[in-house]
């Protein structure tokens, strides 16, 4: 491999002796996709800690029956803020942040298509999130009631109407998410345009890393899903401020319409939260198996298939609302079908590690943990899609178990994997492998201990969103286990925090390509210069760095 002369300084604008103010100024005025990406990831992780602490409050309250740690009102605010935070302020920004950081690098270009719009998108997300959290102090409102929103993350009408929610807390929920939604739409569009228009020489669609494909698909889903939520929220806003009656059943509005609109957004949304994670895993698994990804084409087809399918399954969240039997049947069938492309992905990952030479660095542990945990969550999803069984366990802790396996075991695991994998690129330093492995094993154990028993308590008849339960119902043990599991997770996350701080200060220097990987982001310095590449690369296969490292046996001879 021809290594061209080493560059010296990595950045145009920042000189070593910068005051704190200049540095802040640098970050807030930046239009650089890498800085914005890191801002996204950092703020997302920050919100993750908050959301995690909110979960802790819930687990503390539920640790034993008839417990009295927080009252119902606080508890209801906790799960609402927890769910909203985790979905809108953790999952989306962190995933989009990685997209932001990596996409231009992976397709060999200098920045996003609309760099300023990109910055705007980030700030909208951040301010939206802050506005939402301002509700804790700001929402006493005209009637002096309540603090944070307490209507659940899907805010079913008519609970959100003025009649049942007199303070301003619901308004904060609407406005915070509305504002950050605008940011997400901007970022989604930006990702799609970047990927379609800015690929470097030779980077055809079918040579893009799967990660880039997953971001393309996610971008489309964002463009399609978020506006529907925005529209629904605007209607709700009209209801609350202008007295219109979209969702007020007392005035011939329809509570069902909100559900249709919300879940038309909501289901694609959960795929927005998992598809980038699929992308991370599809990058990590091959590198640490030392093998090319198995069935690239089918992987791409499966992604696109999942995205399309995800738009026709929304009513599986509404099996208990009394839809017509034929509609129930249709949405069940449509939901089952998603298992097929998802299965293709799982099997292709297995195919990739099959016959490989696996190296268990921390990113690989998380990727494998992802596969194992996601399959559990996916299979309970299939059970939920079985309508009559869903009548049994819908809105019970079984559902809570399902979605934490896919969201935590899926999305969050993939995010940790990605953090360990790309941290060296972003900062120039390695995260500690030793701490990372401790964190992984504790987290794996902790999450199973927390979310596994939830399936049991759901089957035992424990509805979700209850702040307390009676002692004589056989639920004690399972809730106790869940709460103990939380402590393990907490410790694991502490490990992570310590690891990040420690490594930023005195982590091992990473070098440009610490994992001996194959995609373009490893073909520049760590951290990359503001302009990523110079000259822009020219690729001939899906694994340009493989070609460079094996001139005697390059990929492009075969693809």
């Amino acid at each position, binding site marked *: 491999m021809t290594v061209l002369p080493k560059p010296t300084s990595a950045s145009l604008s920042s000189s070593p002796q910068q005051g704190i103010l200049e540095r802040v100024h640098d970050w807030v005025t930046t239009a650089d996709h890498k800085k914005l990406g890191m801002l996204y990831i950092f703020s997302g992780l920050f919100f993750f800690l908050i959301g995690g602490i909110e979960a802790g409050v819930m687990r503390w309250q539920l640790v034993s029956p008839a417990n009295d740690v927080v009252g119902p009102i606080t508890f209801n605010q906790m799960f609402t803020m927890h769910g909203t935070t985790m979905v809108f302020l953790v999952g989306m920004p962190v995933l989009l942040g990685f997209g932001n950081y990596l996409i231009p690098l992976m397709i060999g270009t200098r920045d996003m*298509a609309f760099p300023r719009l990109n910055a705007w998108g980030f700030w909208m997300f951040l301010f939206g999130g802050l506005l939402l959290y301002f509700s804790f102090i700001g929402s006493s409102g005209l009637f002096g009631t309540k603090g944070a929103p307490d209507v659940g993350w899907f805010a079913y009408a008519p609970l959100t109407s003025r009649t049942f929610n007199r303070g301003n807390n619901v308004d904060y929920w609407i406005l915070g998410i509305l504002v950050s939604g605008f940011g997400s739409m901007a970022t989604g569009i930006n990702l799609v345009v970047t990927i379609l228009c800015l*690929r470097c020489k030779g980077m*055809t669609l079918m040579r893009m890393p799967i990660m880039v494909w997953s971001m393309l698909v996610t971008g489309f889903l964002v463009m*399609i899903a978020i*506006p529907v939520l925005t529209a629904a929220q*605007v209607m709700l806003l*009209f209801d609350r401020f202008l007295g219109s009656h*979209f969702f007020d059943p007392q005035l011939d509005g329809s509570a069902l319409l909100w559900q249709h609109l919300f879940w038309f957004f909501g289901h694609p949304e959960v795929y927005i939260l998992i598809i980038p994670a699929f992308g991370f895993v599809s990058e990590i698994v091959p590198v640490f198996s030392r093998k090319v990804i198995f069935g690239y084409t089918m992987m791409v087809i499966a992604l696109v298939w999942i995205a399309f399918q995800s738009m026709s399954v929304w009513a599986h969240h509404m099996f208990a609302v009394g839809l017509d039997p034929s509609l129930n049947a249709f949405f069940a069938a449509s939901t089952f079908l998603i298992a097929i492309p998802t299965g293709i992905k799982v099997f292709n990952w297995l195919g990739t590690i099959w016959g490989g030479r696996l190296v268990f660095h921390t990113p690989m542990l998380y990727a494998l943990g992802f596969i194992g945990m996601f399959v559990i969550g996916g299979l309970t999803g299939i059970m939920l899609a079985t309508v009559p069984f869903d009548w049994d366990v819908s809105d019970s802790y079984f559902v809570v178990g399902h979605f934490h396996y896919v969201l935590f075991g899926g999305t969050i695991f993939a995010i940790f994997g990605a953090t360990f994998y790309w941290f060296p690129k972003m900062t120039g330093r390695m995260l500690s492998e030793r701490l990372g492995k401790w964190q992984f094993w504790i987290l794996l154990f902790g999450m199973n201990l927390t979310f596994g028993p939830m399936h049991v308590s759901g089957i035992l008849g424990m509805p979700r969103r209850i702040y307390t339960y009676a002692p004589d119902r056989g639920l004690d043990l399972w809730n106790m286990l869940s709460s103990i599991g939380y402590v393990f997770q907490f410790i694991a996350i502490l490990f992570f925090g310590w690891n990040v701080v420690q490594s930023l200060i005195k982590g091992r220097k990473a070098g440009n390509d610490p994992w001996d990987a194959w995609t373009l982001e490893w073909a520049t310095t760590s951290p990359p210069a503001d302009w990523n590449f110079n000259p822009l690369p020219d690729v001939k296969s899906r694994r340009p760095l493989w070609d460079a490292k094996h001139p005697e046996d390059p990929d492009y001879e075969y693809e």
Partner: protein
Amino acid sequence: MANQTDHHALPREEHHLSKGKVGMSCLIITESFFFMAFIVAYLYYIVIMQVDDGGPDPKDLFYLDWMVYVASICLFSSSATVVFAAKALARGAHDKFRSWLFITVVLGGLFIAATAMEWIGLIGGKGIWMDTCSFGTCFFSLVGFHAFHVCFGLTALSLCLVLSLLGKFPTMQAERFEVLSWYWHFVDTVWIFVFTTVYILRVYT
């Protein structure tokens, strides 16, 4: 030379799409889904459920008088004039560009004026507003958002016109202008749907 066999080194033009055009297409997709939600709400309450809450029957409100027709015709034809303007600009025919653009702006303005008249009639004359009935709720939000988009487009177009009159709108902006004209087409297309749901479907069912 290698062009015949060398499929790896695709010439850059191969996938060089315009950021502006792709971006605008994406924006249009996004906005379409936004409007879809409002159209669905209108269809649901007014056309399918035919909610009877003392609100007016659209049949009685829109006698489809000449105003709606004329306004629609204005809006639809402005889609054509904006194309002529864009073509003229690309050719560097700035005078023609300005005239066509002016006509477009006027047509759009007429449309907005007609909407405003209708609203005044409904709100002031008939006392119907968002909070009076389901019809008001659905009608004002749907038509209102459309009008809002028209206004937005009009502002952008007028700005171009002003800049051009000041001599600050060079030919090199032709692609930007074309992209803007796509937006205008989109606003028109939405009107087709709004017009159908609000004025045709309900009035003729």
